[in-house]
């Protein structure tokens, strides 16, 4: 569990850590749009520059950001294989019997790989510098305008924060059930595929039963403490945008503007 870089919060006292989660989510969103603007390879220069600046200011190492890419490696290789097999435009680079590699396949793969890499690094910076709960609060505040058209922003935020709150509890529970089943002779590691499936079932069924039981008790506790999703609530935690947040947003818009200029001017 410890080597997963994507989605892990690192408590550091950096400039990016102190930023308003709303600003960080908005910047991520703006840069995502910039990444998908077809501005050619030059279009990625301002984005990469922004990311390097963000990495520097958030005191994250480049290797930490790279580690978050590891789980995507297989997918990237898979993309290359698919592109090589189906794309038959551009100049022919290699011809080896029926196996032919065209330049467009490589160029297309390069684009996708660059886009994925940039997006994953951006998400890693966001999650590494923002507490899950602040992230939830940021999402809630950003979705607030959509409440008018019936989007239950605070209900969504409540669900996310409860899910986050119960992850460690359910991991403990999983370990407990695994130990309990192991003591009854269930073998999770060895055996045929069929045996493994039934071993996993012996874990999943009690886990679900207990999760539903927890949910029921939690709902009772929330109701007893006056929670009613249809009524307005005040919030304990509040967010405040500072000059760093506005500078960050301005820079993100600048990157987007440059990319638009490169693509269409």
């Amino acid at each position, binding site marked *: 569990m410890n080597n997963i870089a994507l989605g892990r919060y690192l408590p550091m006292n950096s400039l990016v850590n102190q930023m308003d989660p709303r600003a960080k989510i908005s910047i991520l969103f703006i840069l995502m749009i910039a990444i998908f603007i077809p501005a050619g390879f030059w279009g990625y220069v301002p984005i990469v520059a922004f990311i390097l600046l963000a990495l520097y200011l958030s005191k994250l190492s480049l290797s930490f950001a790279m580690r978050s890419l590891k789980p995507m490696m297989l997918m990237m290789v898979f993309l290359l294989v698919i592109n090589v097999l189906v794309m038959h435009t551009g100049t022919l680079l290699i011809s080896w019997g029926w196996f032919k590699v065209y330049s467009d396949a490589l160029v297309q793969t390069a684009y996708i790989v660059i886009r994925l890499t940039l997006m994953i690094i951006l998400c890693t910076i966001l999650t590494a510098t923002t507490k899950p709960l602040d992230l939830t609060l940021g999402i809630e505040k950003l979705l607030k305008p959509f409440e008018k058209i019936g989007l239950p922003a605070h209900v969504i935020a409540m669900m996310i924060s409860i899910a986050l*709150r119960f992850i460690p509890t359910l991991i*403990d529970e999983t370990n407990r059930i695994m130990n309990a089943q192991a003591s009854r002779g269930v073998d999770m590691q060895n055996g045929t595929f069929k045996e493994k499936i039934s071993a996993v079932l012996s874990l999943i069924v009690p886990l679900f039963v207990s999760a539903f039981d*927890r949910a029921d*008790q939690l709902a009772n*506790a*929330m109701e007893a403490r006056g929670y009613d999703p249809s009524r307005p609530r*005040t919030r*304990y935690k509040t967010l405040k945008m500072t000059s760093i947040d506005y500078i960050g947003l301005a820079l993100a818009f600048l990157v987007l503007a440059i990319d638009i200029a490169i693509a269409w001017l």
Partner: protein
Amino acid sequence: MEAIALDHLSFSYDGENPVLKNLSLTIPKGSYTAIVGHNGSGKSTLAKLIIGLLEPGAGQIKVLGQTLSDENLSQVRDHVGIVFQNPDNQFIGSTVADDIAFGLENHCVPTEDMQAMIEESAAKVGMSAYLDAEPTNLSGGQKQRVAIAGILAMAPDIIIFDESTSMLDPQGKASVNAQIRKLNQEKNITILSITHDMEEASQAEQVVVLDQGEVAAVGRPEDVFMNEELMSRLRLELPFALKAAKAFQKAGLNVSPVLSTEALVEELCPSK
């Protein structure tokens, strides 16, 4: 005035097997009442009925003079807090401060006032040093104390403890029980404690024994626990001091039956 008055209350989950049968009971304001009884005697169901999580099949529930109904449920809940059994499943916030704030948020307390209220109620349960702690780093007893703090922040008149100490280690149990007595004596909060722990029940002012959805006995703990016929019929365990005192009597010693360990020590070796 009674804090809680139950009038001919009946309840059944499935419509066939009654859990509570024609139960009438009054709990005086400012009192400390313990409800004991075996599993399935209807203890926890009673707590859920009083807090309005379940609706009675027949009969009335009056809380602080108001008859419980759909209309006044949220007003009544402003005055009644409940601490459940499982410390993990009632910890809603991701930190201690967030959890205490949860009830305040629901009651639309202005954000500016929250910090002071959170700090005050955390101090009352001795959790001031843990405001930023996450639930995974707290013991069961600490989590239950946070639950109490969350309720205290709402300044309730009545707090129900639904087997709140049954999942705690002896240390956690002692700290939560001490907290309960303190709230009753110092803040004059009406306490209704549903418990399996006879030691705790013997500390209460009033003990209610439930058996198969009916009140088997009500009275002061000394009267209820001394009722040998009742205790043996319901197979309820006696508080340790009383059990020991009876064993001494059987062995021929002149020891009068007492409920607390201190009183037993005094009986065995009088200080004066």
